[in-house]
């Protein structure tokens, strides 16, 4: 290849890379097969790279559209299911009241009614959870200064129970973050720890440290622990651990936490082993106003 042809080729390659840097993956170089010409091989490689990136962008848009449609569908369906479910719940309450006045009600019928009532309640919790989960992506989270310690003390007060001890490491930082999101994350994690702890005294420990431009919070408990085989699945929607007696889960809480943490730029992970309790760690990027 002559010097002028080489220069022309280099210019074409540079132009294509510049376009790719501007996220324009539509350009292609007309490659001539010259086995011993490295410039042609580079042009071929850049073409391949651009085609793959273009395809990835298209695929990502397609998946994003599918996700949005699925979430719209979940929201609409959940919303539409609420009304008939309210009606069922009302009818069950009326039926229970009617039967309570009657003297001929067998204990079996009362037991079955209680079961219906509990199932309706569980379904309501699931529908509310789906509604909350599907709304997360469409919301924007305005940020302001919030006092993590004050918020956590209020959450702990709301969860106060005789058999629950929540220890809060202090001081906790002030965060430039969305207060509601922080409360939702912490509330779900504390609820999760309480739900699965069957000990006489459920101990929950909330801690914080700053590291590499991030706030890292942890919520530890002395519950039954989670087998590592479930660690990757536990944050997925509708996934809950194999049931233990008396433990009912919708499988929405931790999925909601993950979505909230990730949509605000953080990460979440779990450290746990059977019989050794569980610690959920999540991060919030350190940010400042302006």
């Amino acid at each position, binding site marked *: 290849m002559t010097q002028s042809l080489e220069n022309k080729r280099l210019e074409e390659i540079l132009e294509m890379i510049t376009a790719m840097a501007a996220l324009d993956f539509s350009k292609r170089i007309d*490659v001539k*097969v*010259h*086995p*011993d*010409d*490295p410039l*042609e*091989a*580079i042009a*071929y*490689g850049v*073409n*391949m790279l651009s*085609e*793959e990136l273009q*395809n990835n962008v298209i695929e990502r848009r397609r998946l994003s559209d599918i996700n949005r449609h699925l979430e719209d569908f979940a929201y609409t369906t959940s919303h539409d299911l609420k009304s008939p479910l309210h009606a069922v719940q009302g009818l069950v309450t009326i039926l229970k009241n009617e039967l309570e006045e009657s003297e001929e009600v067998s204990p079996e019928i009362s037991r079955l009614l209680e079961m219906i009532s509990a199932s309706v309640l569980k379904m309501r919790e699931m529908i509310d959870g789906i509604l909350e989960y599907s709304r997360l992506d469409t919301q924007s989270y305005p940020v302001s200064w919030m006092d993590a310690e004050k918020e956590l003390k209020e959450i702990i007060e709301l969860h106060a129970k005789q058999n629950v001890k929540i220890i809060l490491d202090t001081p906790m930082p002030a965060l430039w973050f969305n207060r509601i999101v922080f409360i939702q994350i912490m509330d779900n994690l504390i609820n999760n720890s309480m739900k699965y702890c069957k000990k006489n005294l459920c101990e929950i420990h909330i801690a914080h440290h700053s590291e590499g431009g991030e706030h890292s919070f942890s919520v530890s408990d002395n519950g039954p622990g989670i087998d590592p085989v479930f660690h990757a699945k536990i944050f997925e929607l509708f996934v809950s651990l194999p049931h233990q007696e008396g433990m009912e889960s919708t499988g929405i809480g931790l999925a909601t936490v993950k979505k909230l943490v990730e949509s605000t730029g953080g990460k979440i992970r779990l450290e746990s082993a059977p019989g050794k309790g569980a610690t959920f760690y999540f991060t919030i990027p350190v940010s400042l106003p302006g």
Partner: protein
Amino acid sequence: MIFSLKEDGIMEIHKIPGWNDTPTLAHAQKDMECISVLSEGKMYPHLCYLPDVVISREMREFYASHEPVSAATALIVKSSFQRILGNFFLGMNKVKVPVKLFGDETEARQWLSKYKTDVVSPRPLSVFAE
């Protein structure tokens, strides 16, 4: 391409001498059919002499989504063009079957010998696809 199943149990893949057309998806599909016919349901190690060709995205997609057809593949690369093509096959096969680039045929055969099956083909067979 020419596909030859040799007596040592290695399938060799070469370009047909003098064939200089730009390959298409139909060629890729035909190649896979030939391998399937020749292999008769077995997975042989492949020794592939990569040609100097430009393959399209649809061909790459076809190869990447195809079920593995070899026990392992040694790709002989001599030119920069072949190296680019070879690296694509390396990337797409990351978790499916072992794939390695070689400049030297003897080294490639040595490496492939680890992946030979205990079934020895009774005679060399060749299939051509254009």
